[in-house]
């Protein structure tokens, strides 16, 4: 599976400035493992040691929050778009 993972600006310094990374995997967890394989800092910025998402990071698979699907085990298919959304506080 080849899925586009959109990287928010706050995390791009951990993906060599890439705004979007094409990743392989059948679930969100597999996609993120693939991204973290290439960009090691990505993992700790998005997930805790338990392998679950930080509580200030949301992930949307085709605009649906994966916490209300199957979380990190949510299945993805070719052509899906996965977006990462961190809480931001600027005003």
């Amino acid at each position: 599976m080849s899925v586009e993972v959109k990287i928010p600006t706050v995390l791009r310094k951990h993906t060599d400035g890439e705004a979007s990374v094409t990743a392989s995997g059948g679930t969100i967890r597999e996609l993120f493992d693939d991204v973290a394989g290439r960009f090691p800092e990505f993992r700790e910025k998005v997930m805790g040691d338990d392998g679950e998402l930080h509580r200030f990071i949301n992930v949307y698979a085709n605009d649906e929050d994966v916490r209300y699907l199957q979380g990190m085990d949510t299945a993805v298919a070719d052509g899906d778009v996965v977006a990462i959304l961190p809480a931001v506080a600027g005003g």
Partner: protein
Amino acid sequence: MRDFTEEQVHRYARHIILPEVGGAGQRKLLDASVLVVGVGGLGSPAALYLAAAGVGTIGLADHDAVDITNLQRQILHTTSDVGRQKAASGAETIEAINPDVNVVVIDERIDASNAFRILDGFDVVVDGSDNFPTRYLLNDACYLLGKPLVSGAIFRFEGQVTVFDPRREDSPCYRCLFRSPPAAGSVPNCEQAGVFGVLAGTIGTIQATEVIKLVCGIGEGLVGALLLYDALETRFTRVRVARDDSCPLCGSSPEITEPIDYQEFCG
């Protein structure tokens, strides 16, 4: 028209002629009281449009002074305001735009000890703050007091807007969206990372739009939806925000029953 002075009939003519607003909606705006927390990038455009729209009472809460680096986006303040307190500087601008507005200057930093007192009497709260502790505090206080919160946030070229309305059973709160804040120092702030000045105008103006719609009771709002804006790509995206039954504030077994102070994480 009854209930309006002749000058008000002219001043608000373009609203009154809109069937969705009309005289009744304009009356609601004149009777409304809106608290703007953070008189900066988001609070400036929000307060300006709320004032122009004739919101009768506008509270401006901020404890900072105007710095020259603010002027790239904080359009309530002018060069000659550098060094003045933001709440007072903003009040002067608003009074010049619309003398109908009663401006309440709140030159205080909101914390758990004063949140209920400061929010008391306001119908709607606009979150234009620049830090996570204030965002969580405002969320908790608004939920506990049953006041709608129009939340906006910006970072570099990206903005987020949504509305939390505890008067509605289906409304999520900020903790349903982001359960807990990032750890201290883990997230860069606008001072370190920069912010595209005009983005504050876009997001703050959307916040004002949602306040005016809430007050008038018109249109589809942003309760249950998070609007994302990428200024660099000129792209708006909407994602659903569901109410979380396990939320520590608004879920079925709440753990948060009074305002809490977080230590400062970032500015």
